[in-house]
């Protein structure tokens, strides 16, 4: 059921376009500050930047409600920011502080913030999907219209959990949307060298669910695909697989070199930076003004700076935390 793109697809209105863009800038400003702070030696953490992938969760999240849930992965801070995790506790978590979302016990690869619907962030490739199914099952049992989004990478589509999850989701008609952020690499392995199909979305056919490949750097395409999938899920129509083609500008992990990449391929991908492209489009169509965007940029930069200061000024957790939260009640084993 490889979907054809129809002419009359959902279009984001002006306010929604600005909303998507604002989320993208929050992600980008946040990423920029994170890298700066790591370089200054003030943050010690493995950092999986999603620079270049900002459109995907932003265009998805404008279609989600606060009580819709997501499960994401180690490269997922963009997904969390887009879903609405407040920056102060987010920063405190990546800094390992007790004021963090998880009291500093999860860290950047494992941020959880149920209040904003971020239920699980996993460091295990492929593991966002089986759990997303369960959240969707709960929503269905509740008789609610909540949906769950599972984010994962191209590499994760080769792990068994992906296939088990798509099969079960389709069989049980679960309100779940599988969003594959195909950034063309899994660590240092190029997509086509480890994947037997040229499009992850084709795999939806094996599980009899709609699947579509979209330009994950195009906010309009991404919005339309996400909106249709989310509405279908809310209406009881079951799951969708969306493959969003994108690129990660900063390699696998901070400090990565790019020896494994084809130089021309990288240059071409970098030339398609989604942020200036969307900005130009907003200005050209009159949805935004230079001044408006400059103000937005300034406000968000200040918000990120505040979050960073808050985090670095917070206390570390006490060692008692090692015994807490292992079980609901402290048990000395």
């Amino acid at each position, binding site marked *: 059921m490889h979907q054809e793109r129809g002419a009359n697809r959902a279009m984001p209105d002006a306010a929604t376009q600005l909303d998507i863009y604002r989320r993208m800038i929050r992600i980008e400003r946040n990423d920029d500050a994170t890298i700066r702070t790591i370089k200054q030696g003030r943050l010690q953490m493995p950092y999986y930047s999603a620079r270049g992938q900002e459109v995907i969760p932003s265009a998805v999240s404008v279609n989600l409600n606060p009580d819709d*849930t997501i*499960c994401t992965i180690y490269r997922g801070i963009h997904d969390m920011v887009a879903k609405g995790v407040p920056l102060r506790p987010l920063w405190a978590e990546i800094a390992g502080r007790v004021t*963090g*979302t*998880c*009291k*500093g*016990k*999860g860290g950047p690869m*494992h941020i*959880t*913030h*149920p209040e904003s619907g971020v*239920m*699980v962030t*996993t*460091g*295990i490739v492929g*593991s966002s*999907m*089986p*759990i*997303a*199914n*369960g*959240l*969707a*099952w*709960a*929503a269905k*049992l*509740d008789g609610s219209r909540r949906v*769950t989004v599972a984010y994962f990478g191209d590499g994760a589509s080769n792990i*068994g*959990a992906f296939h*088990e*999850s798509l*099969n*079960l989701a389709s*069989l*049980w008609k679960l309100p779940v949307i599988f969003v594959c952020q195909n950034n063309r690499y899994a660590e240092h392995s190029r997509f086509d060298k480890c994947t037997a199909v040229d499009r992850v979305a084709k795999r939806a056919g094996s599980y009899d669910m709609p699947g579509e490949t979209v330009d994950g750097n195009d906010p309009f395409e991404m919005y339309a695909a996400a909106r249709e999938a989310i509405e279908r899920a809310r209406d009881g129509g079951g799951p969708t697989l969306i493959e969003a083609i994108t690129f990660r500008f900063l390699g696998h992990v901070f400090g990565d070199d790019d020896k494994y990449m084809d130089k021309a391929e990288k240059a071409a991908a970098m030339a398609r930076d989604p942020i200036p492209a969307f900005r130009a489009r907003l200005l050209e169509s009159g949805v935004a003004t230079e001044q408006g965007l400059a103000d937005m940029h300034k406000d968000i930069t200040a918000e990120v700076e505040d979050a960073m200061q808050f985090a670095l000024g917070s206390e570390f957790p006490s060692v008692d935390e090692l015994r*807490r*939260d*292992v*079980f*609901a009640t402290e*048990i000395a*084993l």
Partner: protein
Amino acid sequence: MSAPTTKMNALQAVNAAIAEAMAADPKVILLGEDVADPEGGGVVGTTRGLSTRFGDDRVKSTPISEQAIIGAAIGAALGGYRPIAEIMLMNFTTIAMDMIVNHAAKLRFMSGGQSQVPITIHMLTGAGASTAGQHADHLEAWFAHTAGLKVVAPSCPADYKGLMLSCIADPDPCIFIESMRTLFVPEDVPDDQGPIELGRANIIQEGNDVTIVAYSGMVITAREAVKKLAEEGISAELIDLRTVAPWDRDCVLASVRKTGRAVLVHEAVRSFGVGAEIAATIHEALFGLLKGPVRRLGAPYSPVPFSKPLENAFLVQPDAVVAAVLSVMG
């Protein structure tokens, strides 16, 4: 006048516990391979009748997808439910290890206490049924070694019921082990059998000369040994651990303090087993009071074999328990 009882085997006791929990709490749901009635209500009938009584939405047969089963249980738990996931046999948990060990066990801690995963994963296992190396392992030490999992291994129908009720109600993930050898023996279960606290051992028989600690199927073996020892004039105290993690240190240490001797018995391979942990704890706490070395009995360092004589040699026999006790009686 004793309280009214009903004769039932362990499977019926588990079934009764799940039914009771499902009737009391609409958030209790069940999933697993073949668990619904059209598929037979479980491979040995543990869940028979439940889908008919509680509906197809709450009792769901699944594809053969262990990761998807445990993942769905975890997600539903995060969504406010109390799922019971059946993994047909303990060896098949290996397929779902990521979901169990990296996720179910750790989400509470790694989320700083925000997430809870009140799931019960129940499974059959045990040697003795000629199923060989991939259908009979006792892997409880693996799970007990993972912070965040509770591991329960009952030996008699009343405990199966009481402990299953507690696992379902528990706010944390529980591994519930059903030992093949204990499943089909009917015993009286009090009609009002309620939850049995996790982490509480049961002193099956009091004694003064030696403490024997066993759990799961090995309680049957240990009972026979205790009888034989009595014939030889040795008074053994038999403790059924019931919960492997967290295990009842207070009960075991109090008993060994009294007897001065301990023999630990499990079906799992002896090396790096639960017995080693208990032995080390006893030595650390009671070194000066011991009248002999703590002995551990378990399977030899071998996969579960097929051929009958090998399988018999693999399983600890009552005579081996007797011999171990005699060796420490001095």
